[in-house]
């Protein structure tokens, strides 16, 4: 089965006064049909920028997509004009996106109904009346009570969790092939987070949509994602099936990430946390070698001498970008 979306060697740089920021520096990934993918990394590692690049939503200037391909439906999305018709027919229709802040991503002066029917009318050429009926149906699907009356409400009349449900409804309205959820649950409480994640999983199964969950929380993707990409400083440093990443991590950063989060049921007497020393790198004028080197506990002489290690296959779908073989260390 051919991949639905294949991103190859994507590079998105930002030109700032203080130097060149390589926000995404040679990222490759693919998304299969109906698959749930996790893209994990800390803030500033380029996870959002890479997703925005695919949809050509990067403000230019200062940003610039330097190179790369994003193959979708046999076409390279990056060749399209950013504001052109072809890109618009994909964005929101075939590839939809949910953002972190449900308050700022909904227009506060338009009713929910207007925002829901907009994409239906534009992308699917629906008549206003049919679009409205479809909108009620969508709201009901994402679990909003009294959907018919709520259609005329404004975003501020909804709670954070409800707004995010509306966002999910808007994103799914045109039956996209891929849904990208960028930190969909970061601004909400845990019980709401659980509700939203279960809802998203249910919805993508129903609509046969592939889902990319972009998050900094490893726990969020452990339950849902089939495959996981771990990003650090603009690159994928490890990728593989969920079990590969969580049970058999090979990159020192992935190992560190798993050791530094407290797990439910572990108190401090039983297990001290092992933090990753240092802090995430400043992306301005980065050196050529591995960005994780200053924080790495497994570093070798080779890491200092040679440029960033390429992603190499360990076994099956498990790839890692590291010179050190962690199996040799205790």
């Amino acid at each position, binding site marked *: 089965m051919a991949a639905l979306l294949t991103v190859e060697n994507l590079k998105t740089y930002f030109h700032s006064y203080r130097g060149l920021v390589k926000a995404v520096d040679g990222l490759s990934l693919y998304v299969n049909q109906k698959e749930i993918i996790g893209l994990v990394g800390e803030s500033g590692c380029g996870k959002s920028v890479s997703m925005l690049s695919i949809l050509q939503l990067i403000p230019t200037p200062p940003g610039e997509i330097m190179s790369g391909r994003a193959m979708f439906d046999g076409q390279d999305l990056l060749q399209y004009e950013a504001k052109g018709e072809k890109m618009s027919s994909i964005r929101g229709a075939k590839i939809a996106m949910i953002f972190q802040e449900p308050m700022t991503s909904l227009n506060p002066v338009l009713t929910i109904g207007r925002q829901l029917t907009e994409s239906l009318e534009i992308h699917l050429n629906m008549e206003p009346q049919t679009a409205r009926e479809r909108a009620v149906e969508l709201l009901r699907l994402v679990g909003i009570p009294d959907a018919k009356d709520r259609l005329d409400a404004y975003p501020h009349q909804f709670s954070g969790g409800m707004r995010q449900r509306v966002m999910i409804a808007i994103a799914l309205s045109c039956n996209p092939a891929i849904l990208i959820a960028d930190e969909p649950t970061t601004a909400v409480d845990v019980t709401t987070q659980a509700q939203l994640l279960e809802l998203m999983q249910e919805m993508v199964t129903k609509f046969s949509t592939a889902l990319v969950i972009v998050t900094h929380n490893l726990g969020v993707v452990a339950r849902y994602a089939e495959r996981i990409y771990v990003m650090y400083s603009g690159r994928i440093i490890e990728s593989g099936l969920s079990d590969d990443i969580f049970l058999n991590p090979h990159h020192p950063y992935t190992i560190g990430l798993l050791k530094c*989060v407290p797990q439910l049921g572990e*108190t401090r007497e039983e297990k001290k946390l092992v933090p*990753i020393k240092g802090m995430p790198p400043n992306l301005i004028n980065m050196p050529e070698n591995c960005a994780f080197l200053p924080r790495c506990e497994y570093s070798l002489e080779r890491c200092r001498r040679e440029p960033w290690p390429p992603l190499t296959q360990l076994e099956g779908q498990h790839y890692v970008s590291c010179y050190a073989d962690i199996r040799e260390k205790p």
Partner: protein
Amino acid sequence: MNEAQKQSVIDILNLKMYFPINRGLLRRKVGEIKAVDDVSFAIRKNETLGLVGESGCGKTTIGRCILRLYKPTAGKIVFNGTDISKMKEDRIRPLRSQVGAIFQDPYGSLNPRQTASTIVGMPLIVHGMAERGKYNERVEELFRLVGLDPSMMDRVPHEFSGGQRQRLGIARALACQPSLIICDEPVSALDVSIQAQIINLLENIQEQLGLTYLFIAHDLSVVQHISNRVAVMYLGRIIEITNSRELYANPLHPYTKALLSAVPVPNPVIERTRTRIVLKGEVPSPADPPAGCHFHPRCNLATTECTETKPMLRDVGNGHEVACLKV
């Protein structure tokens, strides 16, 4: 006063904090938000008490009442033997040297125009605790205590990273050698790899200096890791309080169970076997909370009794207290 109370640093007794809702042209009071509604607990010396709950449940309000940033509507806050809940403003100030506070936002809680050493040393000056000639020495000591290089003393906040700023906030809270520190979401604004550094720092200085913490956070796995005992709040009330091991192994309140099951665990094998209790609906407005047990509209055990009777916290053994009529 019994033996247990003698050892406690702080005793909260039936604390209530109501905020008025004013509406209309004359700003007449039309209702109340019961942010904290009849809450009692104690924190013993050298202990960390975790306070968890979802946003709007009143956990931060409790912290602010203890700092006396709010004047409680009713109830007692007995701090080191004296009730501070009704104390006059001029007597509160010296008290604040004994209660430190660490806040969530390491960007908003530091004055951007002060140098790091001023930020950390200010409490010493305000409370007259800076001995002549020893001031600089003490500030340097505080820097080292939180793992910051004293050579960074003359920098201003924007030159520090988020984690370093939070260390500055901790140094400031420690300056006057307080007997209690209120940590209000101290790690939730930080990156995951930095969170562990700050959690470990808080744990280490607690052991080193014999500190007592009230640790307020919404992340149950963090709270459970750092706390000896955990109190779970829902809509202004404590619904369950017990030691953190017991809370995880044997949660009794249906809300605690749902909350625990909603916390994601970074392990797919565990996740596959876990059943997730997805609560229906949302947290009701604290301006108009449901009668009886606040949780009854979302509870799967609820009966008519729950809609009428307010459940009180009761001990079910080993200091495990729960407020539910059905367990």
